[in-house]
């Protein structure tokens, strides 16, 4: 494969120009902290050229000085989780291209820091990021589950009547939060539960629509990758 110019690709795929920080401008991470990243810059650049999607991460009830609902450690945990998701998706050739980091201030978040399934839908109905990225909302508490997302979520954030993003609670370890994030975004990209606990999409052995994952839920199949690549969130090649 032809060598990739970081500057050229950052410009064409991410719309950024020198001076560049690989971590900040290419990977899109805004906070410091260890990442334990195994995905190389070269692999990442390959992945974001084709079959890649953008993500808009919302911190619900956050303040920039961390006087809101989240601590800096929790913010770093979310960032780490995005990195874990990138690594999990890389095995099927799907990349996470741009990250948009946004927050809903405490005063605007109202009671959305603690939500159930219905309020999670209200949240995505009331707030959204750019239309070309999948919205992921981090809240402090989901009262009735670990997270909520639709299977085969819409790309039009103005779509009526259904959840237009994934809603997750941050109260998990960073590694598990990454698997959980990959699982919920996987739903959004069209993946149902897999019937295999070692798969990112987990097990649903009794077929009741309630899935389980654990720390070993890290695999994806080629077929699942193809499903993800056919979702409307996948951006044009760059």
């Amino acid at each position: 494969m032809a060598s990739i110019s970081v500057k050229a690709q950052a410009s064409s795929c991410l719309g950024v120009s020198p001076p560049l920080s690989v971590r900040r401008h290419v990977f899109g991470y805004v906070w410091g902290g260890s990442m334990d990243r195994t995905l190389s810059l070269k692999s990442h650049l390959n992945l974001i050229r084709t079959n890649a999607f953008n993500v808009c991460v919302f911190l619900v009830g956050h303040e920039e000085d961390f006087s809101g609902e989240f601590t800096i450690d929790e913010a770093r945990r979310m960032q780490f989780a995005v990195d874990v998701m990138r690594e999990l998706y890389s095995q099927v050739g799907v990349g996470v291209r741009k990250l948009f980091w946004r927050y809903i201030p405490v005063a605007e978040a109202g009671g959305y820091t603690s939500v159930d399934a219905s309020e999670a839908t209200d949240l995505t109905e009331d707030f959204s990021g750019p239309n070309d990225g999948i919205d992921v909302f981090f809240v402090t508490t989901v009262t009735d589950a670990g997270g909520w997302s639709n299977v085969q979520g819409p790309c039009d954030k103005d779509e009526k009547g259904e959840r237009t993003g994934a809603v997750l609670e941050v109260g998990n370890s960073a590694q598990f939060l990454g698997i959980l994030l990959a699982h919920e975004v996987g739903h959004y990209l069209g993946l149902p539960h897999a019937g295999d606990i070692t798969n990112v999409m987990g097990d649903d052995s009794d077929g009741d629509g309630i899935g389980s994952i654990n720390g070993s839920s890290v695999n994806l199949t080629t077929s699942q990758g193809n499903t993800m690549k056919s979702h409307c969130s996948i951006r044009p090649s760059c």
Partner: protein
Amino acid sequence: MSDTGGPPAHALSRPLSQAIAADALDCPVDGLPPLGADDVADLKRILRGETTPAVPIDRARAIRALFRSDRSGETSDVLGRVLANQEETTRARAVAAYGLGTIPGAESERALVRNLSTEDDTVRSEVVTALGRVGSAEALDRLKAVPDPRSPRARRQLSLSRLVIALRAGAGAQEIEEARRALRVGMREPVAPEPDAPQRTFESTLIEAPEVRELLGMVDGSMYGISLSDEVGFRVPCGRATYVLFLNSLLKRGRFVEGVRSKGLVAGILGAQERVTRRVTPRYLVLSTPTPKGLDLLVTRTDGEPAFSGEAALEGDGLRLTLGTAGERGAPARVDGTLSGSDLRWRLVVSGEARQKGHGREIRA
């Protein structure tokens, strides 16, 4: 809260570990399968602090596992202790309050009422919401004494809980009217799509048993203490989603008009059905109060935000329904239809305009 110290640690069964362990990374995601009786008993001992698990646990997840598996008075007692304990995290207390709202009964109500004045805004909001789901007339008196919260959303939740309890408990007309008025504070006049504006129309269809019963079995969420009809309901598509209107079981077929005109009611609950899992999440409450000319109708989200408001005017033996968008951010829409003794026909007309959404602020760390 610390999981160390006290009695000697003991090992958890695999299903219990899967449900509550913090570091085993072995927890269900979208919900929790019910635990067996031995695990439930074990979990209660753990949450009461009578035994210490050998591995660290996630207490909020443990609380969810408990109320999804067991809805006894004893579980209410355990949840009440968590809710009252200021040393527990906000997350654990909020989940405990939510759980109490899924277990109707005096024990749950007492535990919730005792925590109505907690200083934690998030917990208090969950307590108010939960009381709206399981509270009795006594809880209504306590809710009336709660000062109006500063947050508009918390204020709406409080107003909705008051109104729902008043309707469910058969409160007097004046009490219902006061609660209804409080919920309507700040609500905009209903707006419908302009006649020549682009719009989409969604027609409802009648569904009957056994389909309604099957759909009721798929509901995941509170039904606000309302007994819902398993004989008749309505399905309406909306965009990519499908909604199901469940009717209050007090509305008997053949006597719909009589039933809805007899007293104020949570007349129905509108749930969204997920396309793949087919689970139904309650999203809107249909609140009706009789007026001399027919009915006053208000449809709210589960957090109390008005979605539609309007009236049903007496017309012959039936009622003619006309509602418009009442939510601050909602796109103009109209619900119209007719209600007779044995049938309800209605449709939703939605404008092509998008809902006004917030986009948050960019993080510039």
